[in-house]
């Protein structure tokens, strides 16, 4: 799924990475705990989170995650946007809550990528 399709499905506002719309995202994960993202995530390109601070961007960067969706309408801070711009990470914001955002993307074919639990 392309980032621009994620934007459309989640009716999201693009804060960073306007130019990354054509990038393909193959799997996703969702968490408010960055420790869990670092512990359990493997090769996921999209992070859905309700946490809104610079460490969300840092964590994404460490995990080579290319796109972040902030749920519940959260807007990134200037610090977050500065790091994301530098790292080429897209930041989207959606009014959907976490569960709904995940559901919409999953139902449209964006899998978790860890379905061997």
């Amino acid at each position, binding site marked *: 799924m392309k980032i621009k399709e994620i934007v459309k499905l989640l009716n999201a506002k693009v804060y960073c990475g306007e130019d990354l719309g054509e990038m393909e995202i193959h799997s996703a994960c969702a968490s*408010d*705990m*960055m*420790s*869990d993202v*670092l*512990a359990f995530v493997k090769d996921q390109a999209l992070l859905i*989170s309700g*946490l809104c*601070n*610079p*460490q*969300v961007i*840092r*964590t994404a*960067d*460490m*995990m*080579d995650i290319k796109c972040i969706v902030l749920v519940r309408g959260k807007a990134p801070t200037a*610090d977050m946007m500065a790091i994301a711009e530098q790292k080429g990470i897209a930041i989207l914001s959606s009014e959907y809550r976490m569960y709904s955002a995940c559901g919409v993307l999953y139902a449209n074919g964006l899998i978790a990528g860890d379905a061997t639990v």
Partner: protein
Amino acid sequence: MSEALRLEFNVAGNNFISAGSASDEVKKTLKMLGIGAQFIRKVAIAMYEGEINMVIHAGGGRAIVDIFPEKIKIVLQDEGPGIPDIELAMKEGYSTATDNIRDLGFGAGMGLPNMKKYTDEFLIESEVGVGTTVTMVVNFI
């Protein structure tokens, strides 16, 4: 073993905005050196967790990173409160982090186990009231 490339960082305590910048520098350097992506990921996660630990638990510290052609050695030193029971601290889910830290997305008790999981050598030396030194090695082969 040929000579190492050494990087040194002062990690500022309680600065949640800059936390992770040392790990970022190391990640960039390894990328520039052409180290494989799977190794860079392991180093980035382990060092980032360690850096966050120093920021939230120890009031900052120092990171000394030696990069060899075949491995990387990361030493994280702090003068924080120390860890009274290392075995307990290594248990997944055990954390002494406050709610304040949890609100920031950390403190799930996964930091130390994660660091061990992603490294080939992992050693914690700690003395209560003196500080903690974590030594980690990731092999590139």
